[in-house]
């Protein structure tokens, strides 16, 4: 396994429930949705409320979780760029999903198809 592949499997792992990402809509208001892996995180972007995405985006929670828990700095930088562009509503959802899914597809793709 190459270093790159080792890194990818780390980013793709399922983390324990105490390290999962818990989606809130405001301080202390938990939606009941959580993500314990990059794949699950990507899927939840399409299903959680816009309010929840905006809440976490504004606070920088997504970047923090991706950096601290998934240890995926490259994806954290992509999300940080999105945060600074102050997107909201459906535009935020679609651009966030496209950034995360592009990153995910790259990691699960066979080596010859990667960037």
């Amino acid at each position: 396994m190459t270093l790159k592949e080792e890194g990818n499997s780390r980013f793709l792992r399922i983390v324990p429930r105490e390290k999962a990402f818990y989606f809130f809509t405001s301080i202390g208001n938990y939606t009941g949705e959580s993500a314990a892996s990059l794949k699950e995180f990507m899927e939840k972007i399409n299903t959680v409320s816009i309010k929840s995405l905006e809440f976490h985006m504004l606070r920088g929670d997504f970047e923090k979780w991706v950096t601290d828990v998934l240890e995926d700095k490259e994806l954290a930088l992509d999300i940080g760029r999105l945060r600074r562009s102050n997107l909201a509503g459906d535009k935020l959802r679609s651009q966030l999903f496209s950034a995360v899914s592009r990153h995910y597809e790259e990691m699960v793709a066979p080596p010859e198809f990667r960037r």
Partner: protein
Amino acid sequence: MKVKLKNNSILLDRTDLEILRALQSDSRKTYSSIGRQLGVAHSTVYERVRKMEQQKVIKGYTVTVDSEKVGARNVVAFMTVYTDPKETERVAEKLAKLSNVVNVYSSLSEELLIIAKVTAKNQEEMHEFIANSVAPLPGVLKIRTSILTKKFKETETSIIG
């Protein structure tokens, strides 16, 4: 008037209840001042209090601290935790062990809920606490939190009316 406490044979009369009421309003009141207030000797008050302590009718004396003045935990919230009914008891017990949680109750309205009073230094600490210590507990389905903004009344529950 005699009051028989449930599940044991302790009998409290009107004087006992008046002493409890006086101590609940101010537990630093002296036996003499309570005696004067009730028209009984201070030795009577002393004996009654000692007896109620021995019988664990009086479980202790505490201090009510104004957390705002000591600058400790300024943010107070009521947190409603929706749980899987099979896990409610376990979640409530776990919450009761956390230092940010002041009170924990279970309630059966339309659903079985846990209601807890929670404190934190600021809103960020409140959020971190709920996100990192409450949401991940197995059986937690959803959390609704109301941060309190103004206090109109707050007293300890009086069991003697």
